[in-house]
Each structure stands twice: as C-alpha cells, then as structure tokens.
C-alpha cells in the first residue's frame, strides 16, 4: 500500500526494499508523515477516490437508510506485478511477498503463506486452490484479495474471512471462477464502487440568503425570508468518483435535498425545513423570531442539510442505478440578534 499512494495498495514493492531503494516518492515519503512502507500486509483497497470526497475516509455524514460497503473482494494487485491476478502473475506477486517477510525476519508468516499457496497444505476449499502452486494452468478464474475501506478495521477484514469460510488467518487470497462470486461477500463491481463514492462524497454548503441578513438585526414577529438560487452558496451539485485503476470507475453526484434551521431562541416554526426542486432551486421559506435577545447577548441559529446522491447505473450490465441519502451536513452555529419593533413617533 502505500507509500507511493498513501492509501491504496495492499502489498507493496518489496523488490525495491530488497534492492535498497528507498520508496520515498509520493505523499508518504519520509519522516514527514508516517504511513505505509515498502512492504507488509495492508487491508486497504486499491480503489481511489477523486472529485469532491473525504480523502482518506472518515466522512462525518451518515448514510440514511443504506449501509455502505466495508470490505469486498478485489482483483489482486500490487508489487508492481501486472496483472497479479493470473496464476503466473500471482506466483510473481507471492515471490515478492516471501521476499519481504524473509527480509523482515518474519519467517513464520512467509512459511505459512508458502505452505498454503505454493504447497497447497491445509488449504480451505474456499481459497479455490485446486492445482498448487498458485493454480498454475487453471483457467476461467482469477485471484482476488479482501480489500476494505479506510473506515474498516482488521475486525471487519477478519469477518469477511469468516464469511468466506476460512479459519486460517494466512488465507488472504481467493481464486474465484469467473461469474461465480462467493455467497455473502461482495465482489467489486460498478455499483459497489458507486456506493463507496457515495459514502465518501464531500459537500460544502454555506448559508442561503436570509432577509434580513443573518448578520443584521432581526425583528420580533417579522418573518425572515430564506431563499437560494440554484447552484449558489454551496448548494450545488458535487461529483465524486471511485476508481479501481485500469479496471473500473463509477461516478456519483450529490445534490441538495433539504436544509433545516433551528435556533437557540424561540421562533416559529420551531424548526424550518426548506426543500430543493429538481433544478436545484430552494423553495423559499421563512422563520419568525418570537422574542428579542437579552441585551449584549445573541441566539444561535443552526443549519443542517440533507443530500441525495445519485448513481446513474451501469447500462451495460442492466443496472438501473439508484439515489441514496446522506446527512445531516451540519454547519457551525452562527449568532443572531433579535430586537423588538421600534416605534418611531413623529411630531
């Protein structure tokens, strides 16, 4: 994983390590940022996110009514072996794995892998190794590895292993016959990529137009109007893309669905929700403060918005696509001052 691409690989260029080449290019290059390394076992996916996304995972928005994928099976890749999912490619890949662990003085791991994938000793049926080493000469399938999002942990990884029916922690790669995915464990496809992108989409809304403006003094019992033209104040369409390099890519788009305002002071209604139409225009709405703020104080007003994320589907596969919801996207509260109506008496 690593170093070269801070978040995405799984096994890395042990060859470079063995050759004494410092893998110090890219984002995680030196003492500046710890992460990855020139070898080892990493559960992170090779899928890359681009566009408006939470890089590295950790989206603060919740998926509403759906569950994003945590781990899946992904075509094996890494160590600069391309492809690493054919029997020959997998053999070359595993040679790098063995080399890394010998160099790291972790012979037990190296030996465990070798026994399983080269010798076929004690291998569970779920691994799919029918002709050791590495299913040499076997066609109609490919080697896959379990891969997980940055938000998943080793526990999630181990759960997938258990779902696949393996008990040996060193059974990390699986031969899947083409068109025969295992039951209960997702295999990466355009829809899964889209879900991954949707779960990590980042939106940056601001505040709609308030009249009077929020930084102006509001008046008790006089409505404050809220409007927002399509695409303004950050209430626009955002694009997020998930890509398995060279193999698959899916794009989703996030659009505002509604925005809700609440206040620490009394107002009517107590919470107001403004919705967006298909063109992205917010339907005008209003709120009314019911009581003035005490001297030298202010209320706070809070904004939270909900967003719909749409994937157009995969026409080639007959997949119709979907729309999912994420949120709330909560902005820091802002102060608002409210005063009673001032009567002006003329003479």
């Amino acid at each position, binding site marked *: *994983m*690593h*170093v070269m691409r*801070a*978040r995405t690989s799984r096994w*890395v260029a042990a060859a470079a*390590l063995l050759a*004494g*080449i*410092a*893998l*110090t290019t890219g*984002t*995680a*290059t*030196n*003492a*500046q*940022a*710890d*992460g*990855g*390394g*020139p*070898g*080892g*076992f*990493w*559960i*992170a996916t090779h899928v890359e996110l681009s566009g408006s996304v*939470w*890089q*590295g*995972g*950790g*989206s*603060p928005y919740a998926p509403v009514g759906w569950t994003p994928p945590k781990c899946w099976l992904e075509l094996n890749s890494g160590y600069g072996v391309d492809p690493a999912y054919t029997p020959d490619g997998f053999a070359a890949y595993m040679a790098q794995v063995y080399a*890394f*662990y010998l160099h*790291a*003085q*972790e012979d037990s*791991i190296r030996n465990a892998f070798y026994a399983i994938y080269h010798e076929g000793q004690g291998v569970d049926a779920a691994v799919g190794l029918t002709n050791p080493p590495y299913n040499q000469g076997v066609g109609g399938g490919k080697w896959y590895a379990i891969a997980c999002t*940055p938000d998943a*942990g*080793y*526990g*999630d990884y*181990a*759960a997938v292993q*258990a779902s696949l029916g393996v008990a040996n*922690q060193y059974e990390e790669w699986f031969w899947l016959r083409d068109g025969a995915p295992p039951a209960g464990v997702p295999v990466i496809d355009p829809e899964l990529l889209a879900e991954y992108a949707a779960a990590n989409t980042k939106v940056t809304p601001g505040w709609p137009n308030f009249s009077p403006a929020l930084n102006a003094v509001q008046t008790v019992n006089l409505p404050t109007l809220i409007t927002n033209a399509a695409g303004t104040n950050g209430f626009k369409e955002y694009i997020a893309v998930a890509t398995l390099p060279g193999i698959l890519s899916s794009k989703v788009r996030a659009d505002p669905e509604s925005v809700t305002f609440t206040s620490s002071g009394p107002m009517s209604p107590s919470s107001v929700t403004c919705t967006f139409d298909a063109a992205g225009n917010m339907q005008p709405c209003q709120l009314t403060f019911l009581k003035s703020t005490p001297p030298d104080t202010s209320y706070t007003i809070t904004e939270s918005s909900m967003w719909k994320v749409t994937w157009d589907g995969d026409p080639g596969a007959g997949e119709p696509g979907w729309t999912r919801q994420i949120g709330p996207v909560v902005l820091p509260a802002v102060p608002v001052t409210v005063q009673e109506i001032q009567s002006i008496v003329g003479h």
Partner: protein
Amino acid sequence: MRRRSPLSILAASTALPVAACLLAGLAGCGTPASQPNAALPAGGSGATPSVTASPSSTLAVHIPADYHVDIELNPTGDPAQDTFLARTRDMLMAYEQAVSSNAPNDGLYQSLTTSFARGNLYSMISVFSQAGERPTGSVRFYRFTVKLTGKVADVFFCQDTSKVVPVSFKTGQRKGAAATGSSAFSWWDTAFKKNSGGAWAIVYASSLVGRESCMS
C-alpha cells in the same frame, strides 16, 4: 497523556522489555529482550538522547530530546478498552523509538506485536531507515476509539505530523519540511486478537496517510 521522564537511559534500556511483558501479558514476550538501541545521531545538543515514558506505563523508551511524542489518551471507564488503549500507546512509543533510532529490527516494538503488525511496522520504520532520516519536532496521536468486531478489537486513531521535521540520521541536518495539508494526517488501526493461549496480541497495525477528517 505523555510526558517526559527523568529516568536514566541505562535503566530504560535494561528493565524495559521485562516490565512491559509482565504488565501487559503480551504475546511474543517470550522473545529475548530488546536489541541494543542504535546510537543516536550526532547533530547538536537538540539530539541528546532522553528517555520518555508514558505516565501510567513503566515502558521507557529512547527518543531524542528534539522529538516530542504526544499520545492523547483519555480513560474510557471500561477496563478492557483502557487496556487496549494503554497497549496501543506502548506500541506507539516503541515504534517511535525504532523510527528515531533507524532500527527496523528494534526488539522493543517486536516484543509488543505479532504477525502482520510486526511486518507492517517493520515496513514503516524501514521508510525512515532507508531514507537515512529521523523525525524531529512533535508528533501527536489523538482521537482514539476502540471497536470490537467479532473476535477482534480495533483501536483507531489519528496522527498529526504537521510539526514533524525530518533530519538526517547521521548528521542531524534538516532534510525537508513538515508535511502540510491532509498529507500530514494519518489514520491508524491497531488490532488485537486472542492468541492460542487466550492472551490478547497485537496482530495488525496500519497507518494510512491523507486522512482529511483528522484535520478538524
């Protein structure tokens, strides 16, 4: 949660592995005590070796005085979770010792970890040793959470390296600037699993650079 301790270097280098093993019931503690620490680099008074220990741990490590490691742990009230957190803290201090001494085969972190965790930490430490660099400045580990999934306990946390400056291990000369933006923030996972003897062992450790959400 970390502060410097005036413990002597000698005491640290001799008593540490045994104490750590006794306290934590660590898997892998049957291995020999840690290897002698690599000589710390010359490079001015800032690189004078010091000893750092966490407040509630007897683990003592050799980390140069010009490198500060802050590990922000808060007690959860759950003894099991607090144990996982404390052991993660010890692993991090051992990791920082290995990084600071350019010692991928440092015995301390190896005594605290097993399996893929050892291999991954070896890999991460090798990045520094192959570059001939060690960190100076200050690093911060924070926002720790523990999650139980099946038979595995994952400890997740953020790392901020925005105040870490790499210097040459040999000369102490500055070799670059501190990372900026999301590249300075990493997301860690340290996983515990019971071994055949029923003791919790650190079986996996990873760090992913570029965690934007750790910035806020």
